[in-house]
C-alpha cells in the first residue's frame, strides 16, 4: 500500500497529464462522431453571449448587402405569388387552414460561422425558447445550410454541410435518382454527391435539390449545380462535384424548418 502511494506521489505530474490527455482525447473522438459532441459546445451562455455581442457590432458592416439580398428574395417571392395568381396584398383574417402547413419556417441570425476546418459548425441565435430543436433543417433563400445538432435555451449549433459527419439526401432536379451529400474538406464552395446510380442521365450545370426523403428538408430546396462528375472505381455509381448556390463564407440570416408531421412519420417508421 505504502509503495502504491509512493508511486502515485512520485509520478503525480505524469498521471495528471495522462488523465487530462485521456479526457481531451475523449472529447476529440466524440466530436468526430455525429450527434455525440454535446459536452464541449458553443451553445452555452458564455460563448453564445460573446458571439452575439460581437455580431451585434459587426452586423452593421453588412447591412447594405443584406438589404439587397432581402430585396432580391422579396422580388422572387412576389413573382412566385403572381404566378400563382394570388393577390400579393395580405388579407388580414385568421384562417386556420392557412396555418396548418406541413412545414413552418422560423428566422434566425448566424452569429458564428466556420468554413475552414474539416468539421464546421454554425451557431445561430435561436434556441429551445423559440422552439428550435435538434434535427431541424436550416436553409437560406438560396439553398440548404445544415441541420440543427445541439440546442440550449437561447442558442443552437448547426452541423454545416461543410462537415465530414454530415450526410444529407439530395438528388437531381429532373429525375428521381438520389444520393447523399458529403464534403471532402477541400473547397468550401464545392461539395460531393455520392451514390447516384449509373443509369441517371444528367450533364454539367444541372441543378441538385433536396429530395424530401427525410422529414428534415421539404422537397425542392436548392443546393447547387453540377460542376463535374466521374464514375467511381467499380463503375456503378457517379461521384458528382456540386457547386453550391450559397456562399458558405457569407451567411447572414437563415430559416429553420420545422416539419409538422415528424412525429407521425417517425412513429410509422419504428
Amino acid at each position: 500500500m505504502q509503495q502504491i502511494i509512493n508511486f502515485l506521489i512520485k509520478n503525480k505530474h505524469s498521471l495528471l497529464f495522462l488523465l487530462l490527455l485521456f479526457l481531451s482525447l475523449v472529447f476529440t473522438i466524440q466530436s468526430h462522431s455525429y450527434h455525440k459532441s454535446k459536452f464541449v459546445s458553443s451553445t452555452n451562455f458564455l460563448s453564445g453571449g460573446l458571439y452575439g455581442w460581437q455580431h451585434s457590432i459587426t452586423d452593421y458592416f453588412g447591412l447594405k448587402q443584406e438589404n439587397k439580398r432581402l430585396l432580391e428574395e422579396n422580388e422572387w417571392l412576389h413573382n412566385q405569388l403572381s404566378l400563382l395568381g394570388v393577390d400579393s396584398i395580405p388579407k388580414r383574417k385568421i384562417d386556420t387552414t392557412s396555418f396548418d402547413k406541413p412545414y413552418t419556417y422560423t428566422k434566425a441570425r448566424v452569429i458564428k460561422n466556420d468554413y475552414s476546418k474539416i468539421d464546421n459548425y454554425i451557431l445561430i441565435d435561436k434556441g429551445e425558447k423559440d422552439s428550435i430543436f435538434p434535427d431541424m433543417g436550416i436553409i437560406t433563400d438560396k439553398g440548404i445550410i445544415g441541420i440543427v445538432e445541439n440546442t440550449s435555451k437561447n442558442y443552437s449549433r448547426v452541423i454545416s454541410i461543410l462537415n465530414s459527419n454530415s450526410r444529407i439526401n439530395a438528388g437531381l432536379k429532373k429525375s428521381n435518382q438520389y444520393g447523399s451529400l458529403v464534403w471532402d474538406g477541400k473547397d468550401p464552395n464545392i461539395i460531393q454527391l455520392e451514390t447516384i446510380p449509373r443509369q441517371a442521365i444528367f450533364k454539367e450545370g444541372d441543378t441538385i435539390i433536396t429530395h424530401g426523403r427525410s422529414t428534415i428538408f421539404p422537397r425542392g430546396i436548392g443546393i447547387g449545380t453540377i460542376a463535374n462528375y466521374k464514375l467511381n472505381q467499380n463503375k456503378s455509381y457517379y461521384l458528382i462535384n456540386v457547386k453550391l448556390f450559397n456562399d458558405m463564407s457569407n451567411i447572414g440570416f437563415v430559416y429553420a424548418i420545422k416539419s409538422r408531421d415528424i412525429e407521425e412519420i417517425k412513429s410509422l417508421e419504428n
Partner: protein
Amino acid sequence: MNRDTLLHIVRFIVLVLVQVTILNHINFLGSLNPYIYIIFILLAPININKSPFLVVSFILGLIIDMFGDSGGVHAAACLIIAFFRPVALRFVFGLSYEFQTVKLSQVGFGERFAYVILMVLTHHIVLFSLEIFNFSHILLILKKTLFSSIFTIVITMLVLVLFRRNDS
C-alpha cells in the same frame, strides 16, 4: 495576490478574447489562422508548480475548443506543450535553465526564436492531427501545420517584441 499573478491572469483573459473574436476568423488564404493564445504557456514562469500549470493549460485549451466547437483538440495540444515545456527549455537554454537563472524577457533573439519555433510546431502538429483525425489526409495535416506554424510564429514573435516588459 502579487503583481505577477495578476499579470498572468490578465494575459490569459486577453489572449482568449483576442483569439476567439478576431484571430479565429482571419482565414488567411482560405483557411490559415494564427493560434497565438499559446503565448500564455510560452511565457509562464520557469519555476511554476507543474500540476496547476497542466490544469490551467488544459482549461485554456478547453475554452478555445468551446468557442471553436472543436471537441478537445486544443485542450490536448495545450496539455502536451505544457507537459513537454521543460524538455524544450532544457534543449534550447541548456545550463542556464538547469540553474533556474533564465528569464524569457532577457534571452537573446536566436534562443527565444528557437524556443517559440519548437513549441509552436509541436502544438500545431498535435492540433491538426487531432482536428483532421485521418491519416489518409497526412499531406493536408503537414501542409496546414507548416503554413499555420509560420503564421503563428511570425505573429508570436511580433507580440513578444511589441509587448516586452522592461523590468531590468
